[in-house]
């Protein structure tokens, strides 16, 4: 099927070349990081995880969000999603590949990465994270590819895929649950030490993933001959609307518990994020921007008339994406590590090189996504014209 991805116009090829350039630049800078060490990032003894792990966490959510099309289609036989399920699965694949790369570039000794397999340690959550992420990648590759191939050949997909499809649904939930458990089981990091972290991650994921999918559908609708469908886009929009509401609700639950109980360990991190602490407040404008984006998006998505207009829907989805990225990317890391266990404030900002390496990984994800979507759209068009 991949032969469909090597036929394209000059815009398609131009885009791929640009992406390759960005990937190359990111890779070059990564080689530099490999040589000099993680000291070229903005991370420190106190904020020991930064931009890489933040983006990793965020993209696990995007990957898990794909299940929001898979579940209605396969479990509730919501036929309309048949058109876009493959888009959700391929998005998940690209997102997981990026996740794995973000973990790899965050390692101090990446050549020893396989120690995780050589000395497997079932009491470490990272061990389970490796299993669920790779498993989810495998499931989506096998399911996505075979279902698409069957569609192309005009036959029903193979029977043995059915159990894999059913497994992939709770598996999507598991990847983000386990990723939340990385954080929420650590004593002494009170910002993360909350049972609602995994549900909150999932709510944010089910908003961010489908929001990105809507944007991709709008793009495909506009620039290719394949129409993912108005009904499909509207159905996704409802998912985003409810999920972002839940995300904000869960966050407000956190705020209530922290400030009504008034336990310093719990309030101090939120204070740092939203008001600044001891004169340090680098994230204050970001967090308030995220809040405003979130609430604006909720209003835009809840009113059916506004949601129905694709222009407004697109803007709302960008807002959802931005809000959840700041909340789960920037805020989740900085909030957890600042102030440090000794109540000292060391602030964190990614360096230019760190940001470039990050963009390089996103470019690689975009490259994969482009090739996969080109293939998928090619198959859909073939089937439609037959």
């Amino acid at each position, binding site marked *: 099927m991949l032969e469909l991805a090597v036929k394209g116009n000059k815009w398609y090829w131009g885009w791929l070349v640009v992406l390759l350039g960005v990937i190359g630049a990111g890779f070059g800078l990564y080689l530099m990081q490999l040589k000099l060490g993680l000291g070229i990032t903005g991370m*420190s*003894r106190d904020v020991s995880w930064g931009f890489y792990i933040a983006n990793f966490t965020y993209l696990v959510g995007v990957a898990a969000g794909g299940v929001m099309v898979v579940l209605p289609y396969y479990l509730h036989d919501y036929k309309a999603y048949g058109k876009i399920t493959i888009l959700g699965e391929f998005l998940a694949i690209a997102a997981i590949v990026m996740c794995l790369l973000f973990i790899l570039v965050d390692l*101090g000794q990446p050549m020893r990465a396989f120690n*995780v397999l050589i000395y497997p340690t*079932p009491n470490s959550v990272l061990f389970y994270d490796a*299993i669920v992420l790779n498993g989810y990648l*495998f499931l989506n590759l096998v399911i996505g590819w075979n279902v698409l191939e069957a569609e192309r050949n005009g036959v029903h997909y193979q029977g043995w895929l059915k159990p894999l499809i059913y497994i992939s649904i709770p598996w999507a939930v598991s990847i983000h649950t386990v990723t939340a458990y990385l954080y929420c089981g650590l004593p*002494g990091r009170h910002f993360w030490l909350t049972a609602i972290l995994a549900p909150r991650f999932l709510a944010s994921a089910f908003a961010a993933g489908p929001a990105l999918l809507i944007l991709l559908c709008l793009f495909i609708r506009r620039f290719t001959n394949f129409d993912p469908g108005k009904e499909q886009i509207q159905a996704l929009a409802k998912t985003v609307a409810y999920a972002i509401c839940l995300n904000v609700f869960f966050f407000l639950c956190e705020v209530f518990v922290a400030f009504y109980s008034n336990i310093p360990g719990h309030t101090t991190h939120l204070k740092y994020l939203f008001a600044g602490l001891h004169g340090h407040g680098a994230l204050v404008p970001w967090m308030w921007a995220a809040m405003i984006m979130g609430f604006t998006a909720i209003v835009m998505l809840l009113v059916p008339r506004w949601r129905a207009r694709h222009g407004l829907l697109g803007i709302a989805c960008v807002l959802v994406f931005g809000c959840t990225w700041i909340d789960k990317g920037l805020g989740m890391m900085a909030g957890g590590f600042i102030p440090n266990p000794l*109540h000292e404030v060391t602030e964190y900002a990614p360096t230019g090189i760190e940001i470039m390496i990050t963009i390089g990984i996103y470019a690689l994800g975009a490259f994969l996504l482009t090739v996969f979507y080109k293939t998928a759209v090619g198959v859909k068009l073939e089937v439609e014209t037959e």
Partner: protein
Amino acid sequence: MKNSRRRFLQIAGVSALGLGAKPVLDAFASESAHGPGYHLAKGEDAMDARQWAMVIDTRKLQTAEDLEPIIEACNKIHNVPTGIKNKNHEIKWIWEAHYHNAFTDKAGQFTSEEVEHRPFLLLCNHCENPPCVRACPTKATFKNDNGIVMMDFHRCIGCRFCMAACPFGARSFNFRDPRPFIEEENKAFPTRMKGVVEKCNFCAERLAVGKMPACVEASNGAIAFGDLYDEHSEVRELLKENYTIRRKQTLGTEPSVYYIV
């Protein structure tokens, strides 16, 4: 079969995955998840304990000058790169802190002035239930038979999960090659490379040849060291006679470093 080459590649791919999963399945099958998976030999002079523990008499360490030789002894012996000037990249095994940083949950507005102004020594607590050991995905950090939380610098992949897990800020990461920043290299102890985590090891290498930890030796009797589960040990005698505090005791990690205030 028509697509035999593709079929072969598919089967090869799945098989490779199966091979990768084998050690993982073995891990579930083995009965014990503790220890690094290798045997540590003991020498003739080695001192042993069920859980090594430390009691720091802060009454005898009133000023920063009192702490200096203790910290220096440790840094020298363990090749700690003290020349790193960037605070973000500091490597600390044992260091000085204010009361309200050391005992975040015990610091109030109205504390004894004398205690508040005393400098406190901080180091790895060698917890009885260490969250760092729980978090490490490769057993590069593990709890030894004698209760010491050890680091295998050669196995550490530098994921820094242990640093997030430690509630005491006791762990440092080598953000760069530390060797140029070691003032005087001690050939008897390994230097580290960039990209691995390190911390205090309760001088496991000295205990193994019958010597007390370097900080204990340099403390002029202000720091006692012994087996927490030997009721006649020096630390147990001190714990019986003095009221002591530990850092963040409510977290349940059971720190093995006690402070007399």
